[in-house]
């Protein structure tokens, strides 16, 4: 077994163990949930950074769960894309856990929050590392069920309503995914993704793959909140506590939706021009619909939620283009969006923490009283609007250039237009919340506590430094490896299976 392959089960086991210990001891020992939450996510973050090193040295690594050799046993696969997603997920999870130390003081039963939070992180990590399709479904459900409960965490009217809507739609989406997996199993008699890809290439997909593609598009598309399936997101994301909004918008929709979607379509079923066109169309549709719905919102978190839909559109457009440059741009935007959208949601949480409101009309001049929150929001806003040299600019630029290169000039045009409107709505946030004269109600507003500031400032620095990932040297070790996995398509089967022997 290759050294470093133990990273994969550990990435699931560490948060899961943290959740277990928190549930067991968290109520009795004060401060323990904070400590465990931060330590478990830090452990997962270190493991994922190490996994980038492992991928660079050994290439694709396969771990046979319980010693049962794939394709019979359950496999976990570590390749460039997995390492990329692990770093994204655990980086955000760690900073969110740090933020929660102070923020979650507003709620009772903090230990319950950390238990669910760590369960969700374990589920997301599991989705990312697994090489087995049914196992992917199980981890998807672990993460989803934890997120339904977290959306309802405030147990007020709105939270419960949003959670119910989210739970029903999410469960139906999962069932579509399960139905797709059943059909694929009946066609190929295997559940291992690499083996399945080989069987599909060997036997030919035919009508089964067509039906399965539609089911997966609906199922994973709903998890990713792509436009015709987005109705749950603008309710669920604002209703959750701010750290969870950051997790949901930052990583959950990407790991369960975008990652699973492109892993299955590129590496297992094999991308076809039709699927590619559908993905691009849905991407552009999300981009445009999300951006125009966002600009009319007066609830800060609801505005950010619609903005997530629009930004996911960019990611889907980039990945749907199918060219190496487009995929690299899409994945880069996925990483950047995780960082700046988490930052903006944490900032909205900071505002809510200090003032108790999310209504933009009631705010005003908060930058004077809350300089750190104001400054970090500005960084996040500039980043999401795509102003150079912040990270969002580079990834949007790559996607637009890739769209032009692929001959999709209209899609490139819509991407530029959406970017301009994005600038408009983030300026709206800055103008109404932070600039202008201080509303008299907020005369005694204080800046947020230490841990919240640490987390916000770290994310803001990452926004500034995000563009550095494109530097030669860094790019090859991280981003190119990830996009390479998708570019090589169904070669995935041969690469993974050769590792098994």
């Amino acid at each position, binding site marked *: 077994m290759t050294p470093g392959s133990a990273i994969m089960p550990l990435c699931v086991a560490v948060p899961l163990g943290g959740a277990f210990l928190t549930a067991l001891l968290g109520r009795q020992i004060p401060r323990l949930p904070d400590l465990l939450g931060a330590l478990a996510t830090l452990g997962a973050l270190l493991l994922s950074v190490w996994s980038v090193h492992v991928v660079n040295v050994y290439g694709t690594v396969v771990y046979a769960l319980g010693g049962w050799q794939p394709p019979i046993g359950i496999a976990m696969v570590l390749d460039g894309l997995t390492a990329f997603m692990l770093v994204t997920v655990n980086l955000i999870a760690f900073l969110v856990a740090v933020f929660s130390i102070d923020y979650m003081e507003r709620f009772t039963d903090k230990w319950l929050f950390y238990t669910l939070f760590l369960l969700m992180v374990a589920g997301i990590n599991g989705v990312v590392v697994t090489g087995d399709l049914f196992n992917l479904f199980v981890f998807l459900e672990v993460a989803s069920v934890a997120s339904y409960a977290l959306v309802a965490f405030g147990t007020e*009217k709105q939270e419960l*309503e949003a959670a*119910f809507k989210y739970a029903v739609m999410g469960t139906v989406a999962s069932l579509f995914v399960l139905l797709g997996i059943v059909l694929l199993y009946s066609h190929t008699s295997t559940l291992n993704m690499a083996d399945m890809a080989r069987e599909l290439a060997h036997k030919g997909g035919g009508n089964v793959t067509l039906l399965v593609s539609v089911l997966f598009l609906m199922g994973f598309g709903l998890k990713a909140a792509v436009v015709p399936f987005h109705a749950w997101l603008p309710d669920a994301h604002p209703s959750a506590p701010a750290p969870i909004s950051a997790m949901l918008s930052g990583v959950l929709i990407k790991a369960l939706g975008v990652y699973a979607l492109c892993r299955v379509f590129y590496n297992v079923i094999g991308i076809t021009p039709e699927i590619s066109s559908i993905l691009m169309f849905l991407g552009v549709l999300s981009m445009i619909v999300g951006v125009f719905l966002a600009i009319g919102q007066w609830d800060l978190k609801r505005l950010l939620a619609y903005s997530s839909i629009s930004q996911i559109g960019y990611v889907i457009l980039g990945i749907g283009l199918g060219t190496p440059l487009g995929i690299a741009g899409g994945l880069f935007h996925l990483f950047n969006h995780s960082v700046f959208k988490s930052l903006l949601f944490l900032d909205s949480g900071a505002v809510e923490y200090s003032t108790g409101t999310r209504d933009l009309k009631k705010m005003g001049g908060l930058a004077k009283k809350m300089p750190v929150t104001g400054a970090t929001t500005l960084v996040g806003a500039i980043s999401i609007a795509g102003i150079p040299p912040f990270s969002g600019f580079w990834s949007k630029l790559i996607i637009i250039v890739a769209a032009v290169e692929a001959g999709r000039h209209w899609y490139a045009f819509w991407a530029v237009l959406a970017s301009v409107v994005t600038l408009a709505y983030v300026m709206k946030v800055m103008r109404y919340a932070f600039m202008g004269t201080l509303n008299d109600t907020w005369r005694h507003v204080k800046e947020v506590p230490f841990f919240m500031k640490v987390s916000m400032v770290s994310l803001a620095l990452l926004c500034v430094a995000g563009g550095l990932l494109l530097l030669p040297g860094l790019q090859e070790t991280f981003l190119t490896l990830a996009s390479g996995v998708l570019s090589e398509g169904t070669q995935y089967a041969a690469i993974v299976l050769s590792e098994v022997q």
Partner: protein
Amino acid sequence: MALYLLCLVLFSVGVYGILARRNMIKIIIGVIVVEYAVNLFFILVAYKKDGRSPIFSPDADIPVQSMVDPLPQALVLTAIVIGLATTALMVAIAMRIYEKYGTFDIAEIRELRG
């Protein structure tokens, strides 16, 4: 074939329940029906006419071809357990909503819009 069609009918009944009912409890029942339809379909995929249980024994020489595929049965067990968790959570949320709003009618539970 008829069995598969009945399974599809069950699936459609569940989807109809989710989409057309206004009572939250009925929506939850719709979700459960869809879930059972998918599980049933999974079992049907593995079914074999006159199939035997997949147990090897040294005494009897049973050919593998006559055995039912055991894997979907194990997977469906997992799917049922997951379904239990989601159902329990949805029912719990529905109960809390009833405490807050005093109704199960989703047309009257409309705080969120826009």
